[in-house]
């Protein structure tokens, strides 16, 4: 554990805080404000690195007491088994109740159309998420989204209002001045709360290293059978198999993000430690979403369009 920056001998105590301490403190402040102002918050946990940091911060915000809200996973059914194992262990270690909302159940109930065998379930998980929020009467959902991920996210407030249809209206966001996070909503409406808004990908990794946060093994270099589909290295799996003249290749890869296994790409990497990952992303020329997310290649405003419908 890194100690706080010590005060130099014989000088006034500096009011400066290390930037990771500053980001950590602001995130903890936001988590506590939402927990205090909302009736039934929930923390969205995908098992990815950002939600791992989010859960770690939430535990720190209320230690030594228990987490005062449950953790929810929106399960697309297209999972990396390592991630599901990780999810269950982390929720248990945090002493949190785990709610799993299943996209497959939404399909079976006729709430959404099955996009078909092997097709991405990324977009339709918004319905599963909103249904779960309604069912459990959650009035706030913490998410690990960061503003540096995408141009629509860059526009979003820390506490982001959703109307009773779950929609985000980027033209009518609440003013959010100073650190006055104002979290009141009427019945049926809810908030998305993004305590990691000001964190960059590098901040996340540096914090993971400092705090020794465990991650799913797929974030580290490993050998895997992959299929190169239009430049994306997709894991060969029960949902993804070669089409046309595609071939399955064994490569040493790791994941920069964790999402629906049918459209989250791996990157070629030999980074087996967090230090090596930090070095790798410090010199990367492609963004994490650009390198790994098929879903954002379709349109100029893919993320904004999904968010308007209630996406994370």
């Amino acid at each position, binding site marked *: 554990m890194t100690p706080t920056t010590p005060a130099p001998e014989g000088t006034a105590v500096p009011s400066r805080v290390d930037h990771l301490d500053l980001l950590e*403190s602001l995130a903890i402040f936001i988590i506590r404000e939402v927990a205090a102002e909302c009736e039934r918050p929930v923390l969205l946990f995908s098992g990815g690195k950002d939600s791992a940091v989010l859960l770690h911060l939430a535990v720190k915000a209320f230690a030594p007491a228990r987490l005062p809200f449950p953790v929810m996973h929106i399960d697309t059914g297209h999972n990396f088994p390592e991630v599901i194992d990780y999810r269950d262990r982390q929720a248990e270690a945090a002493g949190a109740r785990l709610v799993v909302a299943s996209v497959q159940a939404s399909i079976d109930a006729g709430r959404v159309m099955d996009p078909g065998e092997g097709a991405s379930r990324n977009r339709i998980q918004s319905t599963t998420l909103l249904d779960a929020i309604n069912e459990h009467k959650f009035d706030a959902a913490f998410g690990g989204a960061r503003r540096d991920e995408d141009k629509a996210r860059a526009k979003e407030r820390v506490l982001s209002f959703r109307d009773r249809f779950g929609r985000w209206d980027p033209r009518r966001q609440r003013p959010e001045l100073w650190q006055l996070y104002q979290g009141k909503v009427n019945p049926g409406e809810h908030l998305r709360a993004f305590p990691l808004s000001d964190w960059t990908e590098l901040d996340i990794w540096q914090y993971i290293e400092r705090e020794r946060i465990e991650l799913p093994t797929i974030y580290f270099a490993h050998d895997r059978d992959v299929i190169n589909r239009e430049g994306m290295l997709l894991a060969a799996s029960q949902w993804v198999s070669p089409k046309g003249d595609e071939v399955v290749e064994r490569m040493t890869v790791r994941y920069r993000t964790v999402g629906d296994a049918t459209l989250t790409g791996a990157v070629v990497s030999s980074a087996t430690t967090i*230090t090596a990952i930090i070095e790798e992303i410090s010199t990367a020329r492609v963004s994490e979403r650009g390198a790994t997310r098929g879903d954002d290649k379709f349109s100029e405003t893919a993320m904004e369009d999904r968010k308007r419908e209630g996406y994370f």
Partner: protein
Amino acid sequence: MAPQTQVMDLLRFATVGSVDDGKSTLIGRLLVDTRQLFDDQLEAVAHASVTRGVGDLDLSFVTDGLRAEREQGITIDVAYRYAATPTRKFIIADCPGHVQYTRNMATGASTADLALVVVDATAGLKEQTRRHVCIAALLGVRRLIVAANKMDLAEWARDPFDAIVTDVEQLAARLGIDNPIVVPVSALNGDNVVDPSDAAPWYDGPTVLGALEAAPAGGWAGEGKVGARLPVQWVLRHPTGKRTYAGMVDGAPLAPGDEVMLLPEGIRTTVRRVATADGDLAVAPVGRCVDVDLADDTPAGRGDMLATAPLPEVTDRLVATVCWFGEEPLTTGQRFRVKHTTRSTIGFVEHVDARVDVNNLTLEDRDYLEANDIGVVTISTADPLVVDPYGHNRITGSFVLVDERTNATLAGAMVGAPSFAAPQP
């Protein structure tokens, strides 16, 4: 490599200025020329530019990421971008310039240490630019870097630049801002943004990036004027039955042994321990979230404040400067929910005292405020608030007015009336 031991200096700044003077283009240029953009992000900007028929690379698209923004060619809401140079990290709030979106500009400027003012050199300082600089100053921003933009269109003539320097210096003096830096730039071509330019041989000052890197971080107006402040966010109940009080330290550092007042109750006690989840701290600096163990098992709750001398004021009636965002006018007698630090209560507007004329920086008699007006009001609250003048502390000196029915945030408010210097003769 040991990034965990690196203390990176962090500067938060906001772009301010009128619509179409080039704020987003300047930020786009700054990010592109310092290689903050990934290749795929730059490609996406180029692709969108060509698709929308606005040239090969419309730099404003780097931050104007919403569909409506790209369609209309304006910024609607703040975009937050992050940049790092070898010497410091930047959090950039690229704010909209249009008067209709003043609430969003205020959102971006409320946490800024510095304002990057963008002025169209061919047009000079507009009313909207003055309004934005005025709002930024009222919000406590005490450092200005002014980009006199579109110098290429002004043919790099010295006269329009000098006129802006004169206007900026006068405005800054009235607002109590020292040493504004004015840089002649072309955001479009990249002159004097990151790379120095030969286009203005008469200019020997820094580039925009140079000025941003040299500006002192933090340095907010009120630093050092109040004691420690800790608005209680949450009562942590330990398995042992003990209670500690969680919140963020503000105003001044807080340490074990400090004599504190629990307000508004007015109970004097001592800090026994200050800790985080990682253990005890010898001293908790400003900006750190901690939990505090009090001597005598003094009971406290959310909305209370721990404070060391010089102490804040406990009051249920105060004069405040407000930025009004409501569509309907603000008038005497209106009732709101007030959120101040971690405390929420009900407030009445006893009286609208004045409106700020942003052109002359004077107060005019007016008993109502319209959307995007700045004014002075007297407010009384159902429960007492624990406040410092905004000029002394940003956190304890600010509050918001919230619509009780819709929960919309209708105003940002700062404790105290604005003080403007007399105009130069």
